[in-house]
């Protein structure tokens, strides 16, 4: 493994890749700082620009945007009380209070240090776990793959906010969208209505940009975005020994929570930070003081959301299954580069796997060196009014989707999904299950049809093989959990 990692560093430390890594983390931090522009929109926008460079360089830059955004998100939470990213929502509670008490520097400092520690440990764990997991995944057959994807999808719906029925509807709609295009087995065109651009299926990137980018801008315009930067002198960025003593436990717990939840579909950075905050509050001797400027309330969640990044790469790089919409997008990018993602990725494209891992170590280091000295610049960028920012976001989204094929079809598709996403947000439908289902459907459908062919049409194949049986039973249990839990509550009453 050490020779593989050395090979990875030789890839990551080449001047070219170092430059792309630097660009990625810098842009990631910038979009993390700016509310209303998330890593999904930024990756979608910059993806076409990576088509002319080697895949490894492209993926190094796009991954840098993702983890860079987690670093940047805390700045707005602490200084403006507006989270730059959903994963930094909870940082507002104590981070902003710390800023009001004149401890903005310490809050920013501990957020950056925690992010660095959590991010680095999670990359180490990724490097440790991914290769053996990929070897295990090689023995997976079609039934196991189908069962695994079902469980992943159900888990995502289970963990999403609000009504489970709405989550399921989104999942089902996503599966339907995933079936649009040419059927790989029979060659039949499905729901293409003679539109050429739909022959290869509905593009993941325009859908994601519409659902996450365009809809967010429209909602912000409707509701109005106002932000007031708290005027304070940012000094003493380095936490004192007492601050470290208070927060080291939170940082270590945040690392473990973030990493584990990052692996789970639907877990991701946002849920990791919320869970970390809840646990820190539960474990604290003074839980009533949370929300008044407790350093643990910043250190834990900010560590967890960075640790989640390393975890999220595990299912993608070993099984080819994305854990969240950003990973779904990266999967789409890798497939466009012509890289087959799955258990054989580590063997067939070791330069990409180890190069990305090594670049993440490098990127984390760049971020800690870059972020703290640049806080003044980030604050200045925050002062750009949203009324000047939204035309740029819209323009970037249009450019990003146009450059995919050089046609306006993709742009129109993005706008349609922007409108759909706007109504979905209005009526409290989560877009994540839709995206995940859409991305997983081609593989899931193939696994289902091949499994049924193998078993001569019997669904018992999913229960006769131990691993697929466990996965399917877990998925069914989760799906029925609201009914089971309400029955238990009724019985107890």
């Amino acid at each position, binding site marked *: 493994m050490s020779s593989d990692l050395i090979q990875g560093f030789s890839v990551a430390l080449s001047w070219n890749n170092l430059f792309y890594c630097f660009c990625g983390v810098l842009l990631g931090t910038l979009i993390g700082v700016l509310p209303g522009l998330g890593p999904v929109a930024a990756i979608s926008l910059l993806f076409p620009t990576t088509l002319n460079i080697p895949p490894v360089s492209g993926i190094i830059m796009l991954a840098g945007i993702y983890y860079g955004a987690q670093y940047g998100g805390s700045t707005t939470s602490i200084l403006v009380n507006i989270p730059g990213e959903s994963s930094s929502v909870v940082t507002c509670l104590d981070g902003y209070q710390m800023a009001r008490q004149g401890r903005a520097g310490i809050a920013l400092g501990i957020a950056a240090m925690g992010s660095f520690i959590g991010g680095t440990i999670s990359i180490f764990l990724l490097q440790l776990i991914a290769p053996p997991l990929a070897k295990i995944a090689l023995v997976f057959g079609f039934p196991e793959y189908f069962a695994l994807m079902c469980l992943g999808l159900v888990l995502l719906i289970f963990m999403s906010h609000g009504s489970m029925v709405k989550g399921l*509807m989104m999942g089902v709609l996503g599966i*339907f969208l995933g079936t649009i295009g040419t059927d790989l087995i029979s060659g039949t065109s499905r729901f293409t209505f003679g539109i050429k651009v739909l022959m290869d299926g509905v593009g993941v990137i325009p859908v994601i940009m519409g659902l996450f980018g365009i809809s967010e801008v*429209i909602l912000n*315009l409707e*509701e109005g975005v106002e932000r007031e930067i708290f005027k304070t002198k940012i000094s003493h960025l380095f936490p004192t020994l007492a601050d470290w003593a208070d927060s080291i436990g939170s940082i270590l717990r945040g690392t473990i929570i973030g990493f584990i939840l990052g692996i789970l579909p639907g877990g991701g950075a946002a849920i990791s930070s919320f869970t970390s905050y809840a646990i820190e509050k539960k474990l604290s001797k003074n839980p009533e003081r949370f929300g008044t400027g407790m350093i643990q309330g910043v250190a834990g969640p900010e560590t967890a959301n960075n640790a989640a990044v390393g975890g999220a790469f595990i299912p993608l790089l070993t099984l080819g299954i994305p854990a969240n919409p950003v990973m779904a997008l990266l999967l789409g990018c890798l497939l466009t580069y012509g890289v087959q993602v799955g258990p054989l990725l580590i063997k067939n494209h070791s330069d990409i796997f180890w190069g990305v891992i090594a670049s993440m170590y490098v990127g984390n280091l760049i971020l800690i060196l870059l972020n703290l000295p640049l806080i003044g610049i980030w604050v200045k960028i925050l002062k750009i009014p949203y*009324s000047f920012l939204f035309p740029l976001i819209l323009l970037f989204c249009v450019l990003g989707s146009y450059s995919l094929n050089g046609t306006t079809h993709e742009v129109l598709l993005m706008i349609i999904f922007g409108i759909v996403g706007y109504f979905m947000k209005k009526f409290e439908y989560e877009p994540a299950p839709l995206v995940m289902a859409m991305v997983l459907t081609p593989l899931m459908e193939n696994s289902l*049809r091949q499994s049924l062919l193998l078993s001569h049409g019997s669904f018992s194949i999913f229960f006769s093989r131990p691993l697929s049986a466990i996965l399917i039973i877990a998925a069914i249990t989760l799906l029925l959990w609201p009914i089971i839990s309400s029955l238990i509550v009724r019985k107890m009453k």
Partner: protein
Amino acid sequence: MGNLIWLSLGAIICLSSSKLSLGNLKSPGPGFLPFVTGVLMMVLAIVQFFQSTQNALQATKKQKTMAGKKANLKVFLTITALIGYAVGMEYLGFFLSTLLFIWFLLRIIEPHGRLVVLISSITIALSSYIIFELWFQLQLPRGFILLF
């Protein structure tokens, strides 16, 4: 209303999928999975209908989601501008259409002073052309002017 949309969508999907070959369980055809999603969609719409009728709070919640007339107009104009930009780009070329698009957003949607809007529109259109066409070498539409 929302449930009716879901129900209709499910029914349309079922009907369209049945026109494709559904196959059988031994050998599922291309219409098999879409048909299942259509059925599931209809079932979920019915479940949601019963859930929402049981929950009286739902009605008050939905009332909250309705925005004011001015905000609705802003949303409508932004979407129209986006569609116009996407369609117009092919005819007017990237530079001119971007200039008009940014001008519209900055002048009509979130109004700013004339000079600010003019300078911003030109700067954004020109700099994005330089970055994306000249630096990143993306093939942007040239339109009938054939220059930008």
